[in-house]
Each structure stands twice: as C-alpha cells, then as structure tokens.
C-alpha cells in the first residue's frame, strides 16, 4: 500500500470521526449552545471595549445644490442598454422564428446572469405562448419574453417596512465586498432627507476600518452612529444601538454587519444571534436586506438561499447596477425563492439610490 495513500486514509477517517462528533454535538438540543455563545449582550464583559455612542453634527451642506434630481433606473442604465440592443435587433430582423432565435434569446439571458434553470423556464413559457398564440413575428417573441420576465418580477411589495411604534430596524447582510456599508449610507441619506432621525449600528467589527467607513458616512449624511472598537462583540453594538435608539427617540436604526461568506457556519450563527438581539424589541425589525452585487453570478442564488434560511431575509438590495453587469441573478432569486429586490444602488455617492422598476430592469437586461 502506498504510504501516502495510507496517511490520507487515516487523515480521512480522523476527519470523518471529528466531523461526525461535531455534527452530532451540534444537532443536540441547546445544552451546549450556551457554552459556545460568548457573553450575552445583556451582561457585557467588563473587559470588552465599551461601544460608544457618538452624536455627529450634521455637516453643513457643502454647496447647496439647487435641487436634488432623483436618478431613475432608465437614465442610469442608458449606456448599458445601447450595447445590447444589437442582439434583439438581430432577432427581430431575421424575419422568422427558428432555433437560432431561441438560442439567441437564451444566450442573452444567460449573459445577463439569469442562470440556466430560470432561463430555461422562461424560454419554455414563451415558446408555449408563441405556439398557442400562433406568433410568427420574431419582434413579438421579444415582446413576449419581456412580458414574461416582468410578470416574473411583478406582484410583490417593494416598500421598506416601518414599525408601528418605536424605532424601525433594517438589517443589512451579505457576502464580502457587495456594498453593504455604501447601501446603508444611501438609505440613511434618504431617511434623513425625509426628516427622520437615523442611528447607524457599526456591527462590522471584523474588517479593518469598517467602522471608520460607516462613521464617515454618518457625518456626511447627518446620522448618529453607535460603534465599538475593531474586534468588539457585534452583539453588544447592536444591543447598544437598540437602546440608544429608543432612549433618543430615533426613527430608524440601520444595522451594518460584517461581510460573510454564506458557507461559513460560525459566521452565519453569529448573524442569527444579531437578529435575535433585534428581535427582542417586538415589531422593530422590519427588514433584513441581502445586498447583492450586480456582477454576481450563479452563486448569488446560493447566497440568497443560505441567508434566507439563517436570518429570513425580506428583500434584496441590488448594487453596482451602473456598470455593464445586468444583475440577472435577482430574477433567479425572485423566481426560485420569492424574495424581491427592494432598492437598487447605482453609484458611490449617498444619493445614488433608486427604486426598482421591473419594466426598466427587464428592458435593460438585453
């Protein structure tokens, strides 16, 4: 027997053994859970750096802009759309519907990151309609496809929930680098503009300078921030933000969490714990928003599935849609999991936030 192979087998058995043991423990009731969870936030560890509440004076408007023009999806997507009308011009001009038409349509959707299963489903539906309605004009096929896609995205409430009494809490979750903090800044700006008092909870204590980043946005948007030091317990920050919000009569609390890959069980458990802390104030948690980068591929669906399972996400924020990425994965997320896009991010300033419009989004897909 090859000694290396033997070593591997031993390693394997040991790994399996340990794995089995750990999993067996995990599936047992909560006896061990208390051991694993660090100090609950109600009894803060005296040695832990205490989170501080900072009230930031709103920056005086640098140069008063005459009026803030709210960007619209269509305006921001103009150049992307132009590049892709070619595909459909080609289909429409071909004069008849053949296999190539369907291949082109399929390819356009896949290029937009819609993914194979959703693409197949939509194309099949359109095919069925084409044969039922005896359509022979390729341009009409494109129309039908658009209708089908818009229908897929329709019938959902895209408004962000508000608490009936006391502060409203929106929590932001997602994998690393999708734009959680920037999205919070944009929503904070919108809320402050609407005359609401906003508290930002800097519960990303993992990434270097994440709290700094949020603090800068707090200053720029005129929000308050609750933060701790790098490496502090995020649970204690959420807890403090909740109490700060209710004592100061804040209207909205936006909870920034550290980016985490959805396959890291420990980090997902931590997120669950953060949610539980917010849930203690009944009715406060109105939205758990998954932030998804428009350039994300098929992994976006796995992300949504896992985050939904862990913290029951209520909606998606689609970011960086001002590039050439189409964000088609949100179609798959809505179609397979029924989780709608709530708002869209299109730039790096606090104003670059727009409402999601299904028709405009679909029009921009190809």
């Amino acid at each position, binding site marked *: 027997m090859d000694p290396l192979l033997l070593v591997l*087998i031993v*390693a394997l058995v040991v790994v399996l053994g340990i*794995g089995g043991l750990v999993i067996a423990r995990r599936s047992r009731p909560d006896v061990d859970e208390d051991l*694993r969870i660090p100090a609950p936030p109600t009894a803060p560890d005296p040695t832990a750096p205490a989170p501080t509440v900072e009230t930031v004076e709103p920056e005086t408007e640098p140069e008063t802009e005459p009026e803030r023009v709210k960007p619209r999806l269509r305006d921001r997507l103009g150049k992307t759309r132009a590049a892709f009308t070619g595909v459909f011009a080609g289909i429409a001009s071909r004069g008849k519907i053949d296999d190539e038409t369907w291949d082109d349509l399929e390819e356009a959707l896949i290029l937009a990151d819609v993914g194979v299963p959703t693409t197949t489903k939509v194309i099949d539906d359109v095919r069925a309609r084409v044969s039922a309605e005896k359509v022979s004009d390729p341009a009409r096929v494109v129309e039908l496809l658009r209708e089908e896609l818009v229908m897929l995205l329709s019938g959902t409430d895209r408004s962000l929930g508000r608490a009936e009494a006391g502060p409203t809490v929106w929590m932001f979750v997602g994998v690393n680098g999708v734009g959680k903090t920037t999205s919070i800044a944009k929503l904070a700006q919108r809320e402050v503009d609407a005359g609401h008092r906003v508290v930002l909870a800097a519960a990303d204590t993992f990434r270097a300078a994440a709290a700094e980043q949020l603090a*800068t946005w707090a200053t720029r948007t005129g929000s308050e921030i609750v933060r701790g030091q790098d490496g502090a317990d995020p649970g204690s920050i959420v807890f403090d933000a909740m109490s700060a919000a209710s004592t100061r009569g804040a209207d909205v609390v936006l909870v920034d969490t550290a980016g985490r890959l959805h396959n890291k069980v420990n980090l997902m458990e931590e997120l669950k714990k953060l949610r539980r802390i917010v849930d203690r104030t009944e009715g406060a948690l109105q939205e758990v928003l998954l932030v998804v980068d428009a350039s994300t591929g098929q*992994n976006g669906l796995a992300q949504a599935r896992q985050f939904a399972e862990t913290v029951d996400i209520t909606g998606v924020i689609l970011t960086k849609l001002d590039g050439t990425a189409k964000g088609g994965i949100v179609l798959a997320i809505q179609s397979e999991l029924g989780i709608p896009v709530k708002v869209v991010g299109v730039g790096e300033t606090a104003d670059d936030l727009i409402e999601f419009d299904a028709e405009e989004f679909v029009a921009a897909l190809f």
Partner: protein
Amino acid sequence: MFDALSDRFDGIFSRLRSRGKLTEADIDAVAREIRLALLEADVNVKVVKALISRLKERANGAEVQKSLSPAQQVIKIVHEELITTLGGTSGKLTMSPKPPTVVMMCGLQGAGKTTAAGKLARQLKGQGLQVMLVAADLQRPAAVEQLRVLGSRVDVPVWSAPDDGPQDAVEVARTALDEAARLGRNVVIVDTAGRLQIDTELMLELKQVRDVVNPTNTLLVVDAMTGQEAVNVATAFDEAVGLDGVVLTKIDGDARGGAALSVKEVVGKPILFVGTGEKLEDFEPFHPDRMASRILGMGDVLTLIEKAEATFDADVAQRAQESLSSGQFTLEDFLEQMRQVRKMGPIGNIMKMLPGMPKEMKNAEVDEGEINRIEAIICSMTAAERRDPSVINGSRRVRIAQGSGTSTSEVNALLKQFKQVQQMMKALTGGGKRPKLRGLAGMDLSQLQGGN
C-alpha cells in the same frame, strides 16, 4: 444543481456501456451536459462555446472512440482542456532588475484589492523582501485607514496622503517611489480604488497612476463569485492599463469560479494568486488543475495531498501504518493523528477538499474550539485509559470531565464516536478494499489515486 459533472454523465453513459461506441448524438448529449455544467459555474457563454467546439473535435477523435470507458475519457479530456486554458506560471511575480518592483492592484469595487494587497505584502515580507504599501484608494471612505491597519498587522510601512492634505491618488503614487527609495524598500504594492470599467474618469486616473509608478506587475483582482461580467471587466482593464496577472479572491466560498476561466481566456495572462479566507495568511499560488476540478464540481484532492505531504511527520505516519495494520487503533493514535491533521489547517477546510464528502459534513463549519475540547478530554485520560477505553467507569468519567473542563455527557459522546472510528478503521484495514471505503464515506477513491 451543483452535482459533479461525472454524476451528470452517469445517466448518459450508462446506456452507452452496452454499445461501447460513441455516436454523433451521444457526443452532442455529452456536450450539452458539459455546456450546462460550465454555464452553472459562471463560465462566460462565449468562452463555453469555444471550449465546446474544441472538445467536440477531440471527442470525435480516436482516443475516445478506442477507449474502453468513453465516460472517463471524456471527463479526462474536459479536465485537461480546462487545465490547459487556465494554466500558466503561477505564484510568481516578475521582479524588476532595477528595484523597486512595483505591483499595482486594480479591479471593481469590493473585489478584495485592499485585503489582497495586505496578504501579498505579508507573503513577500515572509520571503525576506522589503515591502511598502501605497494607499492610492482615495474614493472609498476609510480605505486608507483599512490599509494602514493591515500594514501595521503585517508590519509593513504604508505610504498615504496626509489626512488633511490634498486627496489625490496620482500624487500619492508619484511620491511613493521616492519614499520607497528613502526607506530602502524593494517591493512597492499600490492599492488603487475600485472602479467600474466604464467609468472613464476613474479609468483615466488609473492610467495616470500607472504612468507615474510604472508597475512591473499590474494585477487584476477578481471576485470568484463574479458571473458573466468577468469577461467585460477583464477586457476593459487589460485594454486600459495592460494586465500582467490576475488575483482570484474569496475562493473559500462555494462559488464554482468559472470567472477564472473567462478571465484567463480573455486576458491570456496567468492567474497568480488566490485568496482563500479572511485571515492575512489565507493567500496561495493558483493551481490550474485544482480550479479545473472545482469548476467541474470535482473535489480538491491535490491540495489535500500536497498539504498532507508538507505537514505529515514520516515517523507518525509510520506508527499509524503499524497500528492500522495490527488493527489496534487506540485513542492515543487518534490523538496523534488528529494533531497531524490539524497541522494541515482547519478541519472544516480539509473536509471541503475531500471529494464526495456527505453534504452535511462538507457544509459544516467545524468549530476548532470543539476539537480543542476533544483534545482536552483525551489528554485528561491516563495512558491505560487511552489504550483501552473500556476501563473507563463512572468515577473515571467524572474525573476526565473535570480534568478537561467538560461534562460527562461530552466524554460519553466522544467514547461512543471513537468506537465508530475504530470500526471504520477495522473495516478499512481488514479488507483493505476500496469499495468498503467508498461505502463508508460515500466517496470515490479512484479520484484519490487518479490525483496522485
């Protein structure tokens, strides 16, 4: 959805086995499956098309037709084709003959440039180089602060614009080289702001930064979760600043990473490094063969073998072999082997590398603290107890639990689990046959050997 490609093929090939020869229609069916697998892995549609036509050509060739198992042969060809496409020198930066060597990181927002810069700095410093980081990301709030923190963690100086001075990325880059000369630094890593490839203003800034620092290596940082867009990004950055290599980040996620293939095909420059975790040491050279396996949904056995080779102590392996062949695998051996395995890295990561692992184990994040407790329990036993756990009675259990700071129920669970491990070991060594292992772990050991 993420079934291994070989599983997908099983259906097609099971009906072929009786016939033995691949018809045109069979090859088309296989090509369709490969296409789907690649698209699900986010390989760009156009790249997939090119690959499939190359594959079809080879599949029609004699090597497949003459082979006894066309299925294995086709998978082998796909795998080879991907490796060839992904291949190129890896893990090595071009060193400038006239120091300093300048590395410029660029890419979209959130790809992981700053983290990758910190990790690269750590790695190069470990090789004995004098590294300096340059914070030329003045777009994102606190990006400079983030790099400063990373710099202090890896103990590398960070050059940045003074907080109250002008915030101009080109100016920071310009002065960076003088600073590097003053400090006697031979590698300078420039972190730039994330930008969309269609943002003409910021792309112009990137060109200006490039012109003043004249990088030896311009690296594109790409998120492994990127979809079809990867092609546009790579093309645009390559056209704008001329890329020398690619860093693929966040591959510790479960994305299949087809973006790697797309980028490589478009840019034609090697993928040099991969980011494999949140810690600064989670940074490795890129391995085309492993990425190919991953895109196709096969396990990462080669990494495992390499890690085992690097960390396993020959004496310990020898002892393991002896205790295995004698059928006497004790808790002492278990402890020793467990310590060996842990040297290879977190158990959770190792589990993920094994092909065909049961899903619940693959996705389980193993808490290292729990393994520490297992170790503590075994360490709290006497030598006699470790050799023969059946002597452990009630009072011994209490003693062990107290000694290890655990509970008797935990001690019980460990003993029970160990019994199962022992039985697995016996099953393995008793017959020494592969099918048994396959039955036990639900895995295909032929892949283990194949990778060897």
